[in-house]
């Protein structure tokens, strides 16, 4: 069965790009428009990987990650941050929140698929 990935980003075009690329690579993609939406969708269905933007309205990525890690079903689900910031500070925050890794924006679809494959095969 195809693995499911939750893609959280407030930018529709990036979300589309992520969804399209990952779908083309054989994954199922659930899209969410911000952290809150992501959290709701993550509750509806436990996914195999979460990709989240950091800077979003309503709920940012770090809060989403923390909230997800607070849910028993998301203890071990890999979570990657898609971020434009790659400072050590940001990474430290991401790690503290419970992320497993990061991917610096902008990225091209191939890189995205590579990284996702590294994480969930």
């Amino acid at each position, binding site marked *: 069965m195809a693995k499911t990935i939750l893609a959280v980003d407030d930018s529709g075009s990036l979300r589309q790009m992520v969804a399209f690329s990952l779908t083309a690579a054989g994954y199922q993609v659930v899209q969410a428009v911000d952290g809150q939406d992501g959290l709701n969708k993550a509750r509806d269905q436990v996914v195999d990987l979460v990709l989240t933007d950091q800077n979003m*309205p309503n709920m940012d990525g770090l809060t989403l990650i923390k909230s997800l890690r607070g849910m028993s079903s998301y203890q071990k689900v890999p979570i990657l941050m898609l971020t434009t910031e790659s400072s050590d500070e940001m990474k430290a925050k991401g790690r503290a929140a*419970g992320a497993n890794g*990061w991917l610096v924006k902008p990225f091209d679809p191939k890189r995205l698929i590579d990284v996702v494959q590294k994480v969930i095969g």
Partner: protein
Amino acid sequence: MSIDMSQFYQAFFDEAEELLAEAEHLLLALDLDNPDSEDLNAIFRAAHSIKGGAATFGMTDMAEITHVLENLLDKIRKNEMALTGEHVDTFLEAKDVLNSQLEGHRSGADVDRDVQEEVKRKLKALSEGKPVSAAAEMAAAAASAAAPAAPKPAVVAPAAVVDKMRHYNIDVKALSEKDTANLEGELGLLGDVSSKRLDNGHVAFSLKTEDSEDDIISICAFIVEPEDIKITLQSAAAAPGAAAAPADGKQRYNIEVPELSDKDAENLKSELALLGDVSISKAGGKTIFALTTEDSKDSIESICSFVVDLETLVIKDAPSASAAAPAEDLAVASNGFIEGDGFGFFEPITPPPAAPAAEPEPEPAKPVEAAPAPVIEKKPAAAKKEVEKAAAVETTSIRVGVEKVDQLINLVGELVITQAMLEERISKLDPVTHEDLLNSLGQLTRNTRDLQESVMSIRMMPMDYVFSRFPRMVRDLATRLGKKVEFVTSGAATELDKGLIERIVDPLTHLVRNSIDHGIEVPDVRHQSGKNETGRLSLSASNRGGNIVIEVTDDGAGLNRERILSKAKQSGLPVSDTMPDSDVWQLIFAPGFSTAEQVTDVSGRGVGMDVVKRNVSAMGGVIDIRSALGYGTTMSISLPLTLAILDGMSVSLGDNMYVVPLNLIVETMQPQATDIKTVTGAGFMVHVRGEYLPIIPLYSLFNQPTQITNPVDGVLVIIEAEGKKAALFVDGLVGQQQVVIKSLETNYRKVPGVSGATIMGDGSVALILDVPTIIKMGQNNNSEGVYQ
């Protein structure tokens, strides 16, 4: 796999456009003294999102501007810098530039590079706390430095420009302490920077950025000559500290576990594959995995713990297979993270090892009754509030060409006609013997109507699409004219047909401009007349019956009856001093009419109001004015909801049928002979509830034969348009129904008094009456005898 990024461009264009509009909206509403932090965040996010998208889709020029914009906004939102009017002005300028860049990418239009550079400089100056004027000096400096700063051509192949975080060494010839600090500050805008003074007097900067070499050169050009700069690119892995990571830290392990089921073995293999190359073999009741990885035994153990008991697990070092191992693009960075090019993991990428007591969980997808969740910081209060908000933001849409929608609407129109035909035929059948058929047809009728409504709603767009462009215009105009104007809108969610929405923009723009120029007075005058110095201009839209009413209201000087009348007399228009106000106001729609004492560059040339009226009429709408001298003016535009379908009353005249738009009918009546009065030379009037209305006999207007020529034998339909009422005299009423409008003009030619045609249930063609024109025609045509 290659993916064509251009397929996402349209989505990005639309999204960026929306974000820019939203940012502008928020900027205009910002209170300089006490800016709302949520608004600032939202503006920052807009810049941030556009930057992300622009960079991803290879629109570097937009990414550059949003990058500096974002930096400045970030400082302001973090309260490192106070918001000033200068900021807002520059942000608005930047927004305009971004819009033009967007247009450039979208349509290949030329973008003014000087303007882009100018805005970029201003933003940079501001983010350094310098006034905008400093940007001019910087501009001069840049020009003398041969300015290699021109942004890249508007349309670039995306793959070529998708930048990654890079690490540059920048070597600059002799530089003073001050310049070094300046340059470091500039480079800091691009990314993480550090500087070191070398023995030969050179200064070496180390910069980690996702911007290109060109950007670095253009930044440096403000301070040093380009030929004095040497930039070398380091790979990310060679970043300080990262270099210390062993290039080849791979180790080969043999992992022995008691023989596993095929499923478990597959599971474990796929888990281990996350760490590196793995192969599987079975021997002597054991399953052996050969793994080549740079991860520690601990991480292997933690992975295996999902599937097998740790006690039964044996991990042996195998001879290093580094030579055979495929090159991995991951390196351990100084901060302990595993970094690749543009991505990284905080630890060997495996789900974090659970507490030993936890249930094994090979498939993270399954919700398991795992160990109790550790308590992790949450923000329940904030989260709750955000739930409702989030629901509102959710948008899932598909984009379809307008022509497809129109085709759909057309087909549904045909379906409505067919359905009406069926209904007509079936009404002649015996209802008892054909009960089932009648019931089914009733169902079809309902379904058709629902279908029609849903299809029509596809073309509906919120008025916000029009309203959103006004705040900026009002602000600019008011500033230019030295007036203070508070602009409010209401009913922005009201929906209107897309075709109408696009055509209403120009007339509305004109009315708003007029209100600011002629309506609202300058603060001094307002003060003297006891009004608030700040004028109020409101734009509202609402649904009234089958119409959309859009109103532009100002609390300005109001229309001056005397001045309009005297001007009208000068222009030779037929006027009398006893005309009602509503007729006087209509005079301003006469071509070439302007009472403005002086022509401003904004309005007052006397072209416009007639065009406004013509445009509105062409949309099937009417425009109405209410005004009181000294108190203000309201211009009210009433438009049909849609141009394609009309609720009509069919009336008969001789052998023919006509359709009167239902929204223009006040009432219908069969008059008594005593209510009909003759007016010498002006035809006949009917007395309706204290009002005398002119009778317009349709048969004489259209010159159609009919048996009924006495109003007492027929029906009077009281119609109203543009503030005037009249009684339309027809043979009889047939029924009320929705009709699909077919243009007569495109298929035949314009006929006075007829706005279109439709196909009735029986297949015959009926003309749709143009009520405002008929009332006007009636006034000129009412002199001939009607009856007796």
